[in-house]
């Protein structure tokens, strides 16, 4: 039987750099040119199967437009983060750097961070060189890649690379982010279970 792991992934980056488009490409292999902000796209999950048949399930948290006013809950128990900038906007890399500093301060120290330069299809208008971004990522110990959510180039590769880098040492049931079926099922209570369990079968299990 193949092993399965679940991880919480958070997206960060200035608005309009293509965070939601990147996720939409990864999860549904779609792209929408005139996509405004993300209404109702509440909760996305996608799995990646590695060469050794290990299945990594990402529970993806988009900023939902709360870029400037994220709640501490957003970072809580995040296993990995994709910090996105737009290669045609130099200022978006500066913003990405400030998110990375905030992650380094607020998130779990073991968090895997990928810096991602999006809009590779607009390389003709490039303002951020590959060298510059790559050098910064190396200095900070981050993964780095360029993508185009529009053409799909590099997108699945970023998520696969993150999946490979995440620790897969813990027993499968013990991993997982803050979401339903994650850590909660081990020690806590599941409100979605119906109320008819009598005493003696109280602790719900996630088997």
């Amino acid at each position: 039987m193949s092993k399965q792991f679940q991880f919480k992934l958070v997206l960060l980056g200035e608005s309009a750099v293509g965070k939601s488009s990147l996720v939409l490409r990864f999860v549904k292999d779609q792209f929408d040119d005139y996509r405004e902000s993300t209404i109702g796209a509440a909760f996305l999950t996608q799995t990646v199967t590695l060469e050794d048949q290990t299945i990594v399930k990402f529970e993806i948290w988009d900023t939902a437009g709360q870029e400037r006013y994220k709640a501490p809950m957003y970072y809580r128990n995040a296993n990995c983060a994709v910090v996105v900038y737009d290669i045609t906007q130099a200022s978006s890399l500066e913003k990405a750097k400030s998110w990375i500093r905030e992650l380094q301060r607020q998130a779990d120290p073991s968090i895997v961070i990928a810096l991602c330069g999006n809009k590779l299809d607009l390389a003709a208008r490039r303002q951020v060189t590959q060298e510059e971004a790559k050098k910064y990522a190396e200095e900070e110990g981050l993964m780095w890649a360029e993508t185009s959510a529009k053409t799909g180039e590099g997108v699945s590769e970023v998520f696969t690379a993150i999946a490979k880098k995440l620790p897969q040492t813990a027993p499968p049931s013990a991993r997982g982010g803050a979401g339903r079926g994650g850590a909660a099922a081990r020690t806590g209570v599941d409100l979605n279970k119906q109320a008819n369990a009598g005493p003696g079968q109280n602790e719900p299990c996630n088997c």
Partner: protein
Amino acid sequence: MDEEYDVIVLGTGLTECILSGLLSVEGKKVLHMDRNDYYGGDSASLNLTQLYRKFRPDQTPPADLGRDRDYAVDLIPKFIIASGELTRILVHTDVTRYLEFKQIAGSFVYRDGKISKVPSTEMEAVKSPLMGLFEKRRAKKFFEFLQNWKEDDPNTHQGLDLDKNTMAQVYEKFGLEPGTQDFIGHAMALYLDDDYKTKPARPTYERIVLYTSSMARYGKSPYIYPLYGLGELPQAFARLSAIYGGTYMLDKPIDEIVTDADGKFVGVRSGNETVKAKQVVGDPSYFGAGKSTEGGKVRVVEEGKVVRAICFLKHPIPGTDDADSAQIIIPQNQVGRRNDIYIAMVSSTHNVCAKDVYVAIVSTIVETDRPEQEIAPGLQLLGPIYDKFVSVSSLYTPTSSGQSDNIFITRSYDATSHFETVVDDVHDVWRRMMGKDLTLKKRNVEVEA
């Protein structure tokens, strides 16, 4: 800020965040603002730095309390009753996926100088040290009566009418002692005072049923609690609102509620910007609470005060079997008061403080001009207190329904031990704003490849 919104929500307390989330899901264009740079308002959970900044701005937290980031200290002591309305809203809106919950380990009641577990079934009542042998038999009959009650079967009613007979008459029928009435009315029906006894028995019956069904749900106590503190609840509903298009602005001073010549709501002014909307909803602090008027109008009135003492302990509360969390109720009669004293305790099990620290909040409705002395019976149950932060807060209620001026004000967080009155307020405000009852729709949101 040229855009016009359907609703501006002021304050990110739980009531406002639930409303914001539900309004966004309903399709309203919502702008949600807060003067603070954090979510939660009065229902936030603070880390040590924030807690000291609030209560002791001239002091830094002592090093032996441990890491700042391990703390999430609630300002309002409440638990979630497992089978209550808040649970239903959490499940229906699917906000549960952002949160993790744990049980509260025990529910206790004070009687004759010591604390005991609250019995919640006739079986437990029979074993409880709260009652003598004969009283146990009477209590067993009382609980059997409640458990067997069927609305349409008069044989189960034993001659009582829940809508006509008072609770005092029901107690009398079963011959229950005053001390037993105390734990039933206060520790199970969770009334804060004894006024319920002279009223029809039905609400008390329903509250006891809520307590016992909540107790049966997870086993240890009727309560559950979100990991990382109650402050997670408003954050989770704020995320719901944002996902449905709600716009968030924190750290924004609110300088004026702008109205037209008829006093109807126009917009909200922050500095020299005014944002317009059709309706505004917010907590009392944005509408003149603590001041005599807001823009010349009295929009909220004080209807009482609550004293709360946040206590850090380095040990579990004595007599609770070293419970990692507990509620203790001191019924008013037991200590010669009109209102109950509540203790709510949580610990590192709930990710709200460092290991081996216990956070207990003692609270009651203020009856005298020396509020701190009023909670002394509660403080005495805690054993040595490492440190405590005492505050007295006013409870505000709006003076009008808001239907004439489109200004809808929520109520302050009261002294009850759970969130049921908060949900009542959500329903009430919704009805006032939308002119219809709130019906929860099940969300279907999972996007999975």
